[in-house]
């Protein structure tokens, strides 16, 4: 017997060595781009049609201080953003997109209602907002801060922050000076939320680079993260409490919202189901943070809730009810590069509650949505109207030379100590090399049983641009979520969605009850940001919330869209307003948009 042991062990050893190769072969996608008709197979098809729709925007990146010239492609690698808003209340979703080159112009694409758009940014005063002296755009979030019925816009930048008041859908008036916005900050994420539930929208701003850094006039080159995974030398956070009358008060420190991590994305949602919006922040170079809202005061509960371990490179925060349980999961994107850096993206799913505080577990790997390249923006939405929230993810960091990669040098410096990594002059020159470039996007279809399947190449999402922001919106008012993608140094893409016939849907357009911004009581902000709709049908349920900004530098449509699959009827919709009111809508009709106003 002993004689046989060694040969057997050798065979076993070889089998072990072969195991990864076998597993890889088994998990290789079965189909290629030449697969079956996606409409029949997956229930939808995407067609890129920006040009046909009159959209010709191409994002341009800024040129920062010459001391950063050797790594310019990576330090100027953000700023492509998109927000969906019906700014003129004509019933059609419009698009506001940013550019970041000094002197370049942002675009406000107004929907004409026939499937095409016209750029009206110049006309309404939202185009000329990028300059080295004032800052360049990183993104925008829209919310009706004075409850006058028209969505106003906060433009966040590397530089000065701006707030524009919507003048009846005709033009925008700059009101930044009255709003006590930070004089200079390098902001990469912003969210409208009513954290104190007074009926007025407040504004969160998350800094990336320290606000002490002027990226065009560097005092010195020690402005990079002090660690690749434990950096706390980023920008501060701001919470602008809306006092009414166009005035805001900065209260971040006062209400416990303190952090110097490198924030890249934030999303507000009621994770504790107690009515108050909590704030989830995905940080680059570190762990995510979850600030729980204790009646208008925040406390950081990342470790307590399970999301504050295993630091990665958080670049997205979006919420979705992926299991149709009536609970929000949070998707955080990170970096994955085969054989070099496999952080894996995170899907934080609440698995239990302890004393009213949820505990999350990362189920991204189990559900098949962990590896997405150098991931950036992602959004949940039911793309094929089958009743389950799918996930659209864009990726790609710097696409330059196809032959040369910066990965080796990046990994070399990333492992270095603070004294090395935080000083930009120590970073190897990047030249024309790519870093995580030309990557395939992910369109993950939710099978409703806890697993997602990537069908991007099969349904038409075939671009290889450096994707940043994704926003989902029904641009044709036809019960289908279209996809808008803002690419860094690339074109704005519009993927028209054609869902298969026979799939039903239902939409809700909510409007909070507050009017004006003084003497409010017991009503919700007019944008209804923070309102939740739980839809009950076919024995199941799904919750969605109106968002004041989510994903990476993006904001989707305010309207909530539910796919229903073959179900021809809905049991009920329950609306929970930010004011605390609950409203039940019995058996709402399917295949239509329901305008719901908060009852008095």
């Amino acid at each position, binding site marked *: 017997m002993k004689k046989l*042991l*060694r040969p057997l*062990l*050798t065979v*076993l*050893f070889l089998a*072990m*060595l072969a*195991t*990864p*190769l076998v*597993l*890889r072969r088994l998990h290789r996608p079965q189909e290629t781009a030449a697969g079956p008709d996606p409409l029949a197979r997956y229930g939808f098809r995407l067609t890129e049609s920006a040009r046909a729709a009159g959209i010709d925007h191409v994002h341009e990146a800024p040129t920062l201080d010459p001391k950063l010239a050797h790594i310019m492609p990576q330090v100027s690698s953000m700023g492509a953003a998109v927000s969906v808003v019906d700014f003129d209340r004509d019933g059609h979703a419009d698009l506001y997109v940013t550019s970041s080159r000094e002197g370049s112009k942002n675009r406000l694409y107004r929907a004409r209602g026939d499937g095409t758009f016209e750029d009206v940014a110049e006309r309404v005063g939202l185009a000329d907002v990028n300059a080295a002296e004032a800052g360049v755009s990183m993104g925008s979030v829209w919310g009706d801060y004075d409850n006058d019925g028209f969505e106003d816009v906060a433009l966040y930048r590397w530089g000065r922050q701006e707030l524009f008041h919507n003048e009846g859908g005709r033009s925008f008036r700059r009101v930044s000076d009255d709003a006590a916005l930070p004089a200079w900050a390098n902001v990469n994420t912003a969210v409208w939320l009513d954290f104190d539930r007074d009926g007025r929208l407040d504004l969160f701003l998350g800094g990336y680079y320290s606000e002490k850094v002027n990226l065009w006039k560097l005092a010195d080159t020690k402005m990079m993260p*002090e*660690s*690749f*995974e*434990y*950096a*706390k030398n980023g920008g501060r956070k701001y919470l602008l409490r809306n006092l009414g009358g166009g005035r805001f008060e900065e209260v971040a420190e006062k209400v416990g919202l303190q952090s110097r991590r490198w924030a890249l994305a934030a999303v507000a949602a009621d994770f504790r189901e107690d009515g108050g919006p909590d704030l989830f922040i995905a940080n680059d170079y570190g*762990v995510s943070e979850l600030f729980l809202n204790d009646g208008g005061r925040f406390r950081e509960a990342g*470790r307590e809730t399970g999301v*504050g*371990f*295993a*630091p990665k490179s958080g670049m997205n925060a979006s919420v979705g009810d992926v299991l149709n349980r009536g609970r929000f999961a949070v998707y955080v994107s990170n970096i994955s*590069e*085969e*054989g*070099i*850096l*496999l*952080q*894996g993206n995170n899907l934080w799913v609440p698995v239990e509650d302890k004393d009213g505080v949820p505990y999350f577990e990362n189920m*991204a*790997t189990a559900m098949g949505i*962990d*590896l997405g390249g150098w991931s950036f923006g992602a959004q949940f939405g039911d793309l094929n109207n089958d009743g389950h929230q799918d996930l659209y993810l864009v990726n790609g960091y710097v696409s330059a030379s196809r032959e040369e*990669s910066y*990965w*080796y*040098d990046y*990994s*070399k*410096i*990333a*492992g*270095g*100590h*603070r*004294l*090395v*990594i935080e*000083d930009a*002059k*120590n*970073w*190897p*020159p990047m030249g024309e090399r790519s870093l995580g470039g030309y990557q395939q996007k992910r369109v993950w279809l939710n099978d409703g049983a806890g697993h997602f399947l990537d069908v991007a190449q099969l349904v038409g999402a075939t671009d290889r641009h450096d994707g940043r922001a994704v926003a989902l919106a029904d641009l044709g008012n036809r019960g289908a979520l279209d996809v808008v993608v803002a690419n860094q140094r690339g074109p704005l893409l519009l993927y028209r969605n054609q869902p298969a016939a026979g799939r039903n849907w239902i939409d809700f357009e909510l409007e909070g009850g507050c009017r004006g911004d003084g003497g409010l009581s017991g009503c919700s902000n007019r944008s209804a940001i923070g309102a939740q709709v739980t839809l009950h049908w076919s024995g199941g349920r799904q919750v969605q919330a109106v968002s004041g900004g989510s994903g990476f530098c993006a904001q989707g449509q305010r309207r909530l869209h539910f796919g229903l699959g073959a179900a021809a009827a809905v049991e009920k919709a329950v609306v929970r307003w930010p004011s605390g009111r609950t409203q039940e809508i019995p058996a709402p009709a399917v295949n239509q948009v329901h305008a719901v106003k908060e009852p008095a």
Partner: protein
Amino acid sequence: MTTPAVPAPRPSFRLDNRYLAPILVTLVLVIGQVSFGFLESWSRTFLAIATAILVEVVLGRLLFGKWPHLASSYISGISIGMLIRSPEFWPYALCAAISITSKYVLRVDGRHLWNPSNFGIVAMLVLASHVVAGLSVQWGNNLLPMAVVWLFGSVIIHRLGRFHITLTYVLSFLAFSLLRAAVTGHPWPAEVAPITGPMYQLYIFFMITDPKTTVRDKRAQCLVAFLVAAVEAGLRLLEFVHAPYYALFAVGPAANLVEILRDRRARASGTKAA
């Protein structure tokens, strides 16, 4: 009257040297996790440790008929648990199993050639690159934990009589970093950066000093450490991200084979002389 016997001095407590390295590697793990929470998850690291120990016990009993000392497999398991990164669980178990099994399969004249965890990690980086990467980032930005690990590591490795290997490698790395900076034109701090990271702390204290897979002669050990650094420098110039693992993978067994062959010759000539 008899003079009372002078009591024999009681032996002071002396820790078995075989436990020193496991203590050090545990210290690294605890400091890293408590200070920074650096692990992908405790469960993955425990899986690697448990698998390594289990495979060691089973193979030791089956092939040699005795219970093996578990210090070596513990170090392999814990190193793997820290040094590879994967969103999956199975690579941790598989890497540990491959590492320990390699000791029993890849043997010449009763000696195993590769450092077990080095072999396992290289196997995973090459064969399972789609789900496995190496630890390539800094654990934290605080000098204190790093200084503690370097201090304790140096003391313990010195006590084990292998500090000269570590020192030779570090000095060689620094010298080659100057050469690389000159060749690439990159800032010297960028070339030095990797050795300031935690991966190297494990590498220089536990992998390149492994008594079972290093040559016997002290000067030869220094030469091998220098050669590892030299090959690594070459691989780095060719932009291999995991250059240190590959360098040890190539140089370590080659040096062992040379020594084994010389031993054979010595034995043969001794037999002839007899």
